[in-house]
């Protein structure tokens, strides 16, 4: 039933398993004792009438079913009502939702004033922010900076999902040492950053689903998590896209759904990174296609800045806001990767103080 190439044979075991997991995640099979009145006999007669899941029972014509299974209409109607109440999503009033949001939404600063300006003061909890850029454009460095800032200055836990192998504790320590000289503080901050190393799309999907289902607190050892960083989503997903296979797109959307529900339910800010491709017209655009483009609420494009006078490779980067619901698009900010928490474009007074420091 599924096209399987030679390279897929190695992963075919997990392929089938992944498919099975998908089935159980979305359809709810009928089980004995699920609700009062659904005993073994009734369940058997329903299965005989080809009604296997809650969706089948709810969509079917109850009078028809009661005739086929010789069960009273009233009993079926009450079972249907209880099952619907158990499995449906309940409508919430807009006023209550707003109150809840006001109390739970926070803005997490990225530690980089230029980026904060672009993001309208920082990463918003409950949303996905995307950072895209070519190789060497500084996406991972910015992610490290955010992790260091959240764990050191805000003293909150960070979950870092590394799919490229680019995260090293020594680099994090280096960044921490430039912020504070207290050894204990550095160690505490390092302990608040929890790293998950995964290198394929199925593990990514499983890890995110496990985190979403309540593993966040477990993973952080009881500390409150305020940021989840995935660096990078495209490294594991883009090899599976293209061709006639739907599995890749489905994995991407499942990972996206897990991230979104995690962001909303646990009030965390999610930061993901993405690669870039050449779009029609020669411009650079974020990768992963049109279906991914709807997922992040805010998108930033990072680019190198080529300033001829500087000679050797510059550490200047420019960030452009390409999608935002709060700011006008296409505003640009420049910053220096070397000095994460200090902006190049600050006033001259501050600049002098910086130079005196270093």
């Amino acid at each position, binding site marked *: *039933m*599924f096209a399987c190439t030679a390279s897929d044979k190695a992963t075919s075991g997990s392929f089938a398993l992944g498919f099975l997991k*998908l*089935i159980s*995640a*979305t*359809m*709810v099979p009928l089980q004995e004792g699920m609700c009062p009145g659904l005993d073994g006999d009734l369940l058997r007669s329903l299965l005989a009438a080809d009604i296997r*899941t*809650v*969706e089948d029972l*709810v*969509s079917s014509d109850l009078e028809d079913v009661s005739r086929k299974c010789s069960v009273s*209409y*009233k009993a079926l*109607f009450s079972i249907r009502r209880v099952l*619907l*109440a158990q*499995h*449906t*999503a*309940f*409508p*919430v*009033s*807009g*006023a209550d*939702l*707003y109150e809840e*949001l006001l109390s739970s*939404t926070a803005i997490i600063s990225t530690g980089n004033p230029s980026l904060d300006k672009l993001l309208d003061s920082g990463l918003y909890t409950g949303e996905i922010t995307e950072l895209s850029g070519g190789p060497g454009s500084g996406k991972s460095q910015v992610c490290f900076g955010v992790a260091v800032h959240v764990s050191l200055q805000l003293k909150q836990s960070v979950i870092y999902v590394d799919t490229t192998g680019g995260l090293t504790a020594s680099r994090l320590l280096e960044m921490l040492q430039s912020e504070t000289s207290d050894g204990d503080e550095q160690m505490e901050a390092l302990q608040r950053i929890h790293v998950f190393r995964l290198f394929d799309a199925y593990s990514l999907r499983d890890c995110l689903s496990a985190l979403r289902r309540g593993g966040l607190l477990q993973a952080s050892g009881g500390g409150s998590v305020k940021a989840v960083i995935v660096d990078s989503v495209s490294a594991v997903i883009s090899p599976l896209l293209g061709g006639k296979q*739907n*599995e890749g*797109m*489905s994995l*991407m*959307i499942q990972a996206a*759904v897990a991230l*979104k*529900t995690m*962001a*909303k339910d646990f009030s965390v800010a999610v930061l993901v990174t993405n690669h870039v491709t050449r*779009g*029609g*017209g*020669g411009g650079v655009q974020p990768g992963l*296609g*049109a*279906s991914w*483009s*709807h*997922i992040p*609420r805010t998108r930033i494009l990072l680019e190198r800045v080529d300033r001829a006078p500087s000679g050797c490779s510059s550490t200047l980067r420019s960030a452009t806001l*390409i*999608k935002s*619901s*709060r700011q*006008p*698009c296409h*505003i640009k900010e420049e910053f220096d990767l070397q000095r994460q928490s200090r902006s190049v474009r600050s006033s001259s007074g501050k600049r002098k103080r910086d130079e005196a420091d270093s």
Partner: protein
Amino acid sequence: MLCGGQLIRLNELLARLEARRCLKDIEPRLFSEDEGPQHGEVVELYGAEGTGKTELLYHLLCRCVLPEAAGGLEVDVLFVDTDYSLDMLRLVSILDSRLTSAGLEEAALRSSLSRLLVVHCSSSSQLLLTLHYLETTLNSRPSLALLLIDSISAFYWLDRCEGGASISRQEEKLSKCAELLGRLLRDYKFTIFATCHTIRRSSSGSAASCSSTLEADRPYLCRPWQRLVTHRVLCSRQEAENHTAGGSREEKRRQVFRVHCSSSSSRTKASRISSFCATDAGVQFI
């Protein structure tokens, strides 16, 4: 049938007979003359990312829940959020600016928000079950005249993969949702606005080739849903215009969005093109 069942049926019948507010005049600048959605019609907002669909949805939402003194219709709205994209803070800022420009106080904001009901769905099975439950909500709220679905295409890839190689299995869940919606529309006569994302990027530069945009705009969801849609609104981004020198820097940068609205109902096959830009106070038609 027992008494309880009869009472249930009577209740439903009464809820159906009461006419819900017709939303024909919901946005006269969007639909051509007399082409607004009548009872039981479905409008699909189709477009790529960043083309203003969600902004338009918020604009229509505000128009419905605001009190009449602020230019609203005072009807209840149910928002089905399938991709967790509802930005309540943005919605409230639009409502707030419209209420303050009409001179109303805080209490009006709460009453407007209480006319909005929000449901989150995380899979097409849950969407199907939620739509079944919708019948109860429709019975208990006779002023519910608008159902907003953002977006109807959120589970497209998930369903496609789950259905394997058979197209009918892939489209099964969404078809069931569409059929259920069709029945509810016929019985309860409300209106539906749904957003649908593109799945293919149109390979366009500044001069888009006609065929590639047609390719990207082709409907890809299942047939039962396409049969349900009576109005199709195609959203796109217009190239940034050169404003006159008098405009401020903010105005020069404002992104202009284009909407092409076509109606496939039995009346005239009219279509209309309008433009708008997104400001702090919501959508502003040009």
